[in-house]
């Protein structure tokens, strides 16, 4: 009998474990697996995006520079530069003056590239391999890259590719002896048509690159980027590490026994992602890539614990919940033991004793329930039994047997009922306490039960939702087709799992990961549908944030260059398919630089944010506004085909930009220049469209800003013409196609020359004389005016030296100074050097500066002019009367001479407005003690008038046009 009792107890426990605990544990394990997998997938996806973005940035950077060097190798400047330098190098070597002159000219041109393009140095390499030009003149200058000490360097390798394969090439990233720093090189062939004339090479400043590589945004606290290159039996790290800032190029890791390491896998060309140990033995989550262009492995990693922190946290609560469930089970089992098993044990013991013949035994059960009453009845019965024992021994024995059977049955019934109750209670608790929302419907799809997690996640209460269909919470984001497919799958397989958008009670829509299972009875009829879901809006938001980082400009939240390119490509293929068109706007802000310079970068940023908002507010939702960097914005205007549809938008944008705005507490006014290209009319590829819109924007800027321009074939031709002219002008300066003419200034009698004004002429070998009006503005704009102006000054000084050597009445040589020359920082030393070099007296030189230039920044202009005057040079204010100088300013400008603009002199008739102005100017000048010169005197009447007003000097065709130097000899007295 003892055995049986034990068996009942064991069965009870076994049943609990099998029927309740096991399902809970399995369910828990399944949830854990799913959760772990999706968490890991999301993490790896995020890190893969970062790794691919970095790899993409490097590739883009390299491609961009390969194209740049390719173009550089075709510019006349470089072609001519390398030819000239090769010739000079052979004839007179690098120490000669000729080399120094050519070097200076090239240097000024390359300075611009170096400033703009993250370069450290620039080289020109002759066909024989000699480095004949370098900005920095480090020990590589002058060596031969084919035979010299640097013949195995990365520089030599890329130069060889450029020379032999005529392709631009990008080197590996390595230590470079001359600068003893990490460097990479870029080389391209210099081609004159199909002929190779040399190689142009650039050395990169790798700081910027390293910074981009070490940017661990999105990788958490422990994020790290490793880069290493494969060597014979080890890999060498190329970037500093947090734990070892000196690691770059110093630290290595042997291949043997480490070949599962991500960094070694990546360096060997493999590609992957995993939880693993890194080179320092730390547990990490890593994504690795191979970058062929640099021949390196790239690893993006973060500490595994940090990566899994969120997951570990949620697991912690699940474990506590599980422990609670197990505790509750033990409690129930203890209770069942006390309430049922113990009394039965006691009764059984007594029954055993009775049946053994010991009628004195009584059951000791103090309970009010059935077992208690049973024991009491049993005891009474035993009493009666005892008294009637002798007479009724046989009947009692029979009764005892019956009782025993009843007892057994009762025991069984009680046990069964308790078991069922406990099971129901547990299942209920699991559902009520689950972290996932659970929803149960009947076979017709009406909701019969939801758990608290459902209420918490969706905000819908039981009262609102029980008895309804789940479709009452649908978001409207999915079409009929989606739900049909879902039901189809559910009916076919009994299961459906997927992402679905639903609506919360507060109207907000959210994504959830939903599993639906059909529950069948034995006849395979559906009884219920059970839906379990997780709210994945947070995870989605994280993914979106990662994407946002990669594709949006952090300042204005507008799409960045990458996304703009992607959208543009998409728009091109979309428009191609739908046979429609779109417009591409390139917008450049006017006066943004001034705001940045005067009010600081903070104000500049503020301004860009406001501009971004304004642009966004003026276009439709489908249109894309992007910021490419700096103050460059672009807009893709969809579904437009004709300029008439686009013009109003462009005007509207201009108006919005012109509205004054307040940044850093100051009201500022900006404007914009807009270039527009239309798809497909102005191009069908991304490159073509962006290039053409850019060109149109360039025209808008040229037209004086605050306007918009459409791209046209004529525009392209015009710009090409300009580029041609610019190239020819560069050549003109080198080939000495420029020459000077001189126009004399006379006293009023016209019998004595007081001075001459030098005027530049361009004698083009094919086009003949080209008007200064065509090439001076161009030279001013491109900066060519500086070398040109220096030449004019030197040539003028040389000429006046010749003339004044022959006379006792020295002439003044007036030379025009352009705005850019006037603002050039080294103006004074330059002029002093020229005076020393040509050895002329400073007062022979008169610099003519137009009124407009001086009015730009009055205080600074006065300071510059004072310094010039103090060194003995004469100053003249040119085109006087056309600007807006106030009398007050005029008094403060240290000028010696006023030149009346020829527009006044030309219209000079007695009593005309111009006559009054001229008269006023002369009076004014005399009052200030200045010499007055009237320009453009062409008739005797004009001369008579000026005589009457006692003007000092006159200049014009009436006396002489500008003449070559030798023709002026006749004016010598």
């Amino acid at each position, binding site marked *: 009998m003892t055995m049986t009792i034990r068996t009942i107890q064991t069965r009870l426990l076994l049943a609990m474990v099998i029927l309740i605990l096991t*399902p809970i544990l*399995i*369910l828990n394990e*399944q949830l854990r697996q799913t959760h772990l997998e999706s968490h890991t*997938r999301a993490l790896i996806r995020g890190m*893969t995006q970062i790794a*691919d973005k970095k*790899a*993409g940035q490097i*590739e883009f950077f390299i*491609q961009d520079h390969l194209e740049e060097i*390719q173009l550089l190798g075709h510019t006349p400047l470089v072609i001519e530069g390398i030819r000239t330098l090769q010739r000079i190098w052979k004839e007179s070597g690098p120490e000669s003056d000729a080399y120094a002159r050519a070097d200076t000219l090239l240097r000024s041109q390359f300075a611009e590239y170096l400033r703009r393009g993250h370069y450290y140095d620039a080289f020109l390499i002759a066909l024989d391999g000699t480095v004949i030009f370098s900005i920095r003149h480090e020990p590589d200058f002058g060596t031969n890259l084919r035979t010299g000490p640097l013949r195995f360097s990365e520089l030599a390798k890329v130069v060889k590719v450029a020379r*032999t*394969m*005529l*392709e*631009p*090439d*990008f080197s*590996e990233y390595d230590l470079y002896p001359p600068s003893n720093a990490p460097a990479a090189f870029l080389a391209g*062939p210099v*081609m004159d048509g*199909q*002929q*190779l004339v040399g190689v142009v090479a650039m050395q990169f400043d790798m700081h910027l690159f390293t910074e981009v590589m070490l940017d661990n945004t999105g990788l958490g606290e422990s994020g790290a980027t490793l880069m290493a290159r494969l060597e014979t039996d080890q890999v060498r790290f190329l970037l500093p590490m947090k734990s070892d800032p000196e690691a770059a190029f110093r630290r290595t890791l042997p291949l043997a026994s480490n070949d599962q390491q991500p960094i070694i896998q990546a360096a*060997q*060309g*493999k*590609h992957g992602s995993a939880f693993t140990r890194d080179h320092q033995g730390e547990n990490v989550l890593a994504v690795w*890539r*191979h*970058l*062929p*262009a640099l*021949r390196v492995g790239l690893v993006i990693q973060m500490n595994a614990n940090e990566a899994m922190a969120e997951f570990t946290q949620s697991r912690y609560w699940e474990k506590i919940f599980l422990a609670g469930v197990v505790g509750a089970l033990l409690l129930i089992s203890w209770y069942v033991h006390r309430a049922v098993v113990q009394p039965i044990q006691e009764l059984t013991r007594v029954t055993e004793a009775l049946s053994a013949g010991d009628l004195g035994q009584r059951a000791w059960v103090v309970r009010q329930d059935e077992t208690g009453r049973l024991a009491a009845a049993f005891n009474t019965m035993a009493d009666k039994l005892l008294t009637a024992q002798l007479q009724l021994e046989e009947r009692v024995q029979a009764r005892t047997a019956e009782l025993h059977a009843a007892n057994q049955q009762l025991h069984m019934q009680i046990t069964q009922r308790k078991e069922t109750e406990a*099971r*129901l209670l547990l*299942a*209920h608790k*699991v*559902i009520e306490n689950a972290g996932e929302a*659970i929803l*149960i419907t009947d076979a017709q799809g009406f909701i019969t039960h939801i758990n608290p997690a459902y209420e918490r996640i969706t905000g819908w209460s039981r009262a609102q939702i029980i008895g309804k269909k789940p479709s009452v919470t649908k978001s409207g984001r999915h079409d009929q087709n989606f739900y049909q497919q879902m039901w189809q799958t559910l009916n076919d*397989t*009994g*299961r459906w799992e997927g992402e679905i958008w639903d609506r919360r009670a507060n109207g907000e829509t959210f994504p959830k990961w939903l599993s639906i*299972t*059909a*529950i069948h009875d034995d006849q395979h009829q559906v*009884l*219920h549908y*059970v839906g379990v879901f997780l709210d994945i809006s947070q995870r989605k938001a994280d993914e979106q944030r990662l994407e946002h980082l990669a594709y949006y400009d952090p300042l204005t939240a507008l799409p960045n260059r990458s996304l703009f390119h992607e959208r543009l*490509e*998409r728009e*091109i*293929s979309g428009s*191609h398919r739908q046979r429609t068109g779109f417009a591409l706007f390139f917008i450049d802000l006017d006066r943004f630089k001034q705001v940045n310079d005067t009010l600081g970068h903070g104000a500049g940023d503020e301004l860009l944010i406001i501009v971004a908002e304004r642009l966004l507010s003026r276009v439709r939702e489908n249109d894309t506004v992007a910021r490419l960097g700096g103050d460059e914005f672009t807009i893709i205007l969809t579904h437009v085909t004709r300029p008439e549809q686009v013009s109003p938008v462009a005007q509207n944008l201009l108006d919005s930009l012109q509205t004054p705005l307040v940044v850093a507490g100051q009201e500022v006014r900006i404007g914009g220049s807009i270039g527009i290209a239309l798809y497909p009319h102005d191009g*069908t*590829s991304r490159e073509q469209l962006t290039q053409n819109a850019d060109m149109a924007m360039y025209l808008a800027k040229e037209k004086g800003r605050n306007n918009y321009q459409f791209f046209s074939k004529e525009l392209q031709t015009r710009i090409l013409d300009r580029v041609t002219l610019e190239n020819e002008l560069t050549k003109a300066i080198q080939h000495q196609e420029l020459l000077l003419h001189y126009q004399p200034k006379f006293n009023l009698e016209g019998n004595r020359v007081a001075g001459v004004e030098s005027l530049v002429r361009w004698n083009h070998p094919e086009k003949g004389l080209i008007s200064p009006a065509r090439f001076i503005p161009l030279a001013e704009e491109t900066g060519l005016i500086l070398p040109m102006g220096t030449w004019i000054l030197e040539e003028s000084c040389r000429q006046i030296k010749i003339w004044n050597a022959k006379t006792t009445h020295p002439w003044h040589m007036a030379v025009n100074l352009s705005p850019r020359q006037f603002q050039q920082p080294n103006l004074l030393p330059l002029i002093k050097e020229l005076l020393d070099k040509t050895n002329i007296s400073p007062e022979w030189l008169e610099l003519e500066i137009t009124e407009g230039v001086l009015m730009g920044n009055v205080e600074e202009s006065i300071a510059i002019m004072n310094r010039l005057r103090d060194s003995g040079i004469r100053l003249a204010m040119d085109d006087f009367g056309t600007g807006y100088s106030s009398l007050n300013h005029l008094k403060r400008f240290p000028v010696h001479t006023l030149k009346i603009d020829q527009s006044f002199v030309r219209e000079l008739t007695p009593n005309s407005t111009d006559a009054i102005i001229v008269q006023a100017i002369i009076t004014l000048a005399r009052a200030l003690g200045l010499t007055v010169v009237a320009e453009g005197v062409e008739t005797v009447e004009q001369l008579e008038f000026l005589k009457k007003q006692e003007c000092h000097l006159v200049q014009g065709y009436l006396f002489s046009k500008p003449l070559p130097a030798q023709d002026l000899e006749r004016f010598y007295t």
Partner: protein
Amino acid sequence: MVLALSWFFGCTQEPKKPVKIGILHSLTGTMAASEQPLVDAMTLAIEEINHAGGILGRPLQTVVADTQSDPHTAAQAAERLIVEEQVAALFGCWTSACRLEVKAVVERRQHLLFYPLQYEGMERSSHIIYTGATPNQQIIPALLWAMEQLGPRLYLIGSDYLFPHAANRLIRTLAPSQGGKIVAERYLPMGSGQVEPIITEISTLQPDVVLNTINGDSNVAFFNALEQANRNAVKPVAVLSFSIAEVELAQHPGLMQGHYAAWGYFQSIDSPRNRAFIHRFRSRFGQNRVLDDPMEAAYVGVHLWAQGVNDAQTIAPDRVSRAVLHQSLQAPQGIVSLDAATRHLWRTVRIGRAQADGQFALLWSSERPVRPSPFPAWLDKPRADTQPVP
């Protein structure tokens, strides 16, 4: 409530449906001898992938279409594999004519083709991955090597079709800038054995090297006749070939002995990885089989595609097409990586000299994988995509 839990025990995984991939190669017709081995190389790659658990947990299954050495048949087969068989990607083609026909199909159907041959370049389709060499990964470095090692006087001979003309056009443009001189440029009709006039001209002109782009059986006549002429010559003429590899030489092992060829992969590459590759291939297809560059390129293509699928977590061609662009792997020839801008591979360049057994002894190799440049910078051709990138 108990029922609510029951599905956790009841759910069972049904067996995964295989992923189909399509192979387009000639199993009959003139190209069959060259193309059949590529199918074997890809079969090896597919079996390797299946052995490691397939892709996305599903096994790979190939659908091979015999293109019958006819581009038009190839295009029809491509259409059928995409539409009826629903393949996840296409692998195949040998000739440029075949590629161009199939290109039109994959572009129209927004699908994906892996093309394993070295070819003339000047192409970049958003729906093709090119795993063979571009001219700057074969012809041009080999030309420079030949001018430096053998001499500057060049004789160009090729079969009369697209690739030799395009290759010689590059040589004509580039060689003079490096001091080379082309003494003659000749073409044989496809399949012609009329080589005597050519051999006579070569004997007379005595070039430093013959650059050979002859295709197929004409090579047998050419090399045999040249061997005769060289036997009597004072200075034997050397030949550098761009269209003959181990598979073609397997039929005539001694044919090219002493002459040169340029490829990215030679069976003779002495690395543990390549030895293992040869061992696996021979264990599966027979101990006498040889491997060559196009076979390796086809094999690599399948693995790159599988890696792309793994990254994209889908077999949808448009998504895979993008994911493949980030792939690299350790191939039998060394590290190969996709160049996202051109959709070609970074490959190593090698030059070998043919031995008596039809294998090549390695003479020169580029130190590192070379960037693919399908549009040579120095050629005046518009760079344009064949269609907008989606």
